[in-house]
């Protein structure tokens, strides 16, 4: 992180509908954090420079960017593209946000205590974690979120935050179910594999994120998941079942190796609640024991879509290269870009 003296700058944030808000931000605080401290919760996801959800464009002044993946910024850096989670001001700035003021949440995110009530390995490199929210100060213990959204949680003892999307649906039992990818040397991964135990209490922020079902969409819904990108898509499919949505649904779930396959029982259970549902789990590098489909889920889905008369809405979640490949393959197959809804999840150590 850049280190400069604690100098404050005025950072003016401009939304697409022309609303301006100015927040005070010192040189060691990210614009994203300064905005949140000022009561403006801007769009973001990994908050580690790896996903691009907080992309914006600087139009005046200067920021210094901390560590980040330059490929995820929506606008090239030489045209002013920045990531707000990694932008530390060096002058007063004017920054354009790529969304309307209505998308800025003005309530500060609330924090909840959540107890680990389930912890088991779902597959090689995947941890299945269940949290149960404790009643908050207001007495509420509901797990309130839209399917597709994510929760940020603090890694105990370290104080860094990581974001994960639940695989279950909003409920009043306070239950949050996650499939978390384990990364060698990852802060959360080390905790989950080394120190975590049922009964531990984590701090969880309220739900965030724009990824979700287009509720009034009438087209068939196709879902393409890469690895633990299955989690938010499973939530959407479960929501469809619980809410009685009538749209036909298809799921393509891809992993690299056979021993990384998980959540097969949950996927099979979806067929009971969805009137028109089928799923395909596909392994990229199968071992001899794998009897299912091989290859990658993007190619499999795109090949089938190319044969359709009516283009479905497609929901994609996986690592950035997979999502990029999905956009290319799906548009080539005839899916209009505005019918592709994607979330990139990045591997943040």
């Amino acid at each position: 992180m850049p280190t400069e003296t604690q100098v404050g700058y005025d950072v003016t944030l401009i939304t697409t509908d022309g609303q301006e808000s100015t927040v005070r931000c010192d040189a060691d605080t990210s614009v994203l954090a300064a905005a949140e401290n000022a009561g403006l919760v801007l769009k973001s996801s990994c908050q580690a420079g790896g996903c691009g959800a907080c992309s914006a464009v600087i139009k005046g002044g200067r920021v210094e960017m901390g560590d980040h993946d330059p490929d995820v910024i929506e606008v090239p850096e030489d045209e002013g593209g920045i990531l707000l989670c990694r932008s530390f001001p060096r002058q007063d700035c004017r920054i354009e946000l790529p969304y309307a003021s209505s998308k800025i949440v003005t309530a500060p995110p609330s924090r909840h205590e959540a107890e680990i009530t389930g912890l088991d390995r779902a597959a090689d490199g995947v941890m299945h974690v269940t949290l149960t929210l404790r009643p908050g100060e207001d007495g509420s213990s509901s797990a309130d979120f839209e399917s597709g959204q994510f929760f940020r949680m603090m890694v105990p003892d370290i104080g860094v935050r990581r974001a994960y999307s639940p695989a279950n649906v909003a409920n009043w039992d306070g239950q949050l179910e996650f499939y978390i990818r384990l990364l060698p040397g990852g802060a959360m991964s080390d905790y989950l594999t080394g120190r975590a135990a049922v009964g531990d209490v984590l701090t969880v922020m309220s739900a965030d994120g724009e990824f979700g079902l287009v509720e009034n969409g009438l087209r068939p819904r196709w879902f393409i998941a890469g690895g633990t990108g299955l989690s938010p898509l499973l939530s959407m499919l479960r929501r469809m079942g619980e809410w009685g949505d009538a749209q036909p649904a298809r799921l393509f779930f891809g992993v690299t190796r056979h021993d990384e396959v998980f959540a097969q029982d949950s996927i099979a259970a979806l067929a009971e609640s969805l009137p028109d549902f089928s799923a395909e789990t596909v392994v990229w590098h199968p071992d001899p024991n794998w009897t299912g489909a091989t290859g990658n889920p993007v190619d499999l889905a795109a090949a089938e879509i190319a044969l359709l008369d009516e283009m479905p809405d497609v929901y994609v979640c996986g690592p950035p290269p997979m999502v990029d490949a999905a956009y290319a393959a799906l548009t080539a197959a005839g899916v209009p870009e505005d019918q592709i809804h994607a979330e990139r999840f990045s591997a943040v150590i």
Partner: protein
Amino acid sequence: MFCYQCEQTDRTPQPGRPNLLSFGCASTKGNCGKDATTAALQDALVEVNLGIGQYAQKLRELGAPDPRFAAHASFDLFTTLTNVNFNASRFMTLIADAVGVREEAKAAYEAAARAAGKEPETLTGAAQFVPADKISEVVAQAATVGVDADLDTLGADIIGLRNLNLYGLKGVCAYAHHAHALGYRSDETDTGIENSLAFLGAGPTEADALLGEALELGSVNYKVMAMLDAANTGSFGDPVPTPVRVTPVVGKAILVSGHDLHDLAAILQATAGTGINVYTHGEMLPAHGYPELHKHSHLAGNYGGAWQDQQRDFTAFPGPIVMTSNCLIEPQPAYRNRIFTTGPVGWPGIRHVETSDLSLVVKAAQSLPGFTTEVSEETVTTGFARNAVLSVADKVIDAVKAGDIKRFLLIGGCDGAAPGRNYYTDVADHAPDDTILMTLGCNKYRFNDHEFGEIGGIPRLLDLGQCNDSYSAVQIALALADAFDCGVNDLPLSLFVSWFEQKAAAVLLTLLSLGIRNIRLGPTLPAFLTPAVVDILVDKFALKPIGDPAEDLAAAMAGA
């Protein structure tokens, strides 16, 4: 899309519009939030139900009536009212179901005809409409069955009169469904509904016939509202004047909105003994006057104002919300996961529950915080339905004869967000002290917390109930006319009616069918009433658009 069924329809003059109708929502989304796809599917659903009515009418004529058909159409048409159901995927299911019911009606009619030794007729019009399988194709079909179909050949007046019938029928069906939900029905009301469906299904084109049928529909609605009155009072007792707490009490809470007393009763039963308090919202306020609902000690009070304030009220409410009928507007993120719909209501992405299983709503209430701060008690009073008012009829009549009561002002109907509705507040606030103000519907929220005092022990503000309780108002008027030995139009009674949706259209037709004159209607006249039709209504019934509140009040006090 084209839709002009409610008061908030787009009234921006658009000379370039390739449509002879002056006003209406005609873009991709209506002012109510209904999108073009849903609007088209609703029109298609109505068309299939008109066909059900055509066969059901024929079946009844053969002496084999089947009450399922009027009941089915009542529910389906209710879903198409303003601010009821916005869920396009639900409409595809409803259309498919309605086609199945129409096939049953057709088969029953043909079997009955053959049993009677007659060759079944081939019905034309809506009976022949075959909805496509794909949504995009049904949407395309809506051009031929939509509310502005045949405009080019029939003209705006005929189309407007058709829609006066259609929208009135939607209101009739909504009231009928509320009664059906409580187990009440009658051959007379079923017949009226079937006849109106069949009339519209055949594609009427004569102005006189359309106007005559509209007034006949008003008579049908009078019977339907009598049935609903019987259903409500038969199920829950005669309303009695009841102070209703409008400030919350500490504890877990559920908010129940809409009009359906059956659903409220189910929620009260499901929460009995759980410690959860139940609050009414909007048009549910008069429920407190019914003894069999009021007896539940956990029916704690009323929360919030009229429907158009729901996004603010629901956001602040610390528990689940159940929407049992109109008016629903787009649920905000703050409460999307804790609002539920029942019966005909729907919104994409919002949970729909059956009142037979309210466990999820109860669980939500137990999980959510509820009210945690004690607030001092404030109340409003409701429950002045016909029996309550008529029980003091002698007192009222004496007060009129003594000159203590100069006039009754009925200020009733819907509230809405559009400007111009302050008129009703002004009329209430500036009405002379020797007037009695009678309210029904949700526009009472504009002034029901104002202090109006009493006349000889009779509160000056008498809340008769929901818009559904217009029957009660008519009964009071008829009883007073009887007591004074005069006609209703000769009573010292003035009507200031605020309309918003199609139930109000049905009530208006009822008032007209009873020959009631000098109704002041606002805040604007329905867009489907073309100038020529308005002229007829003004000529026959002295229907008046609202004007300046002070001038209107002065004119009303003078008997005009």
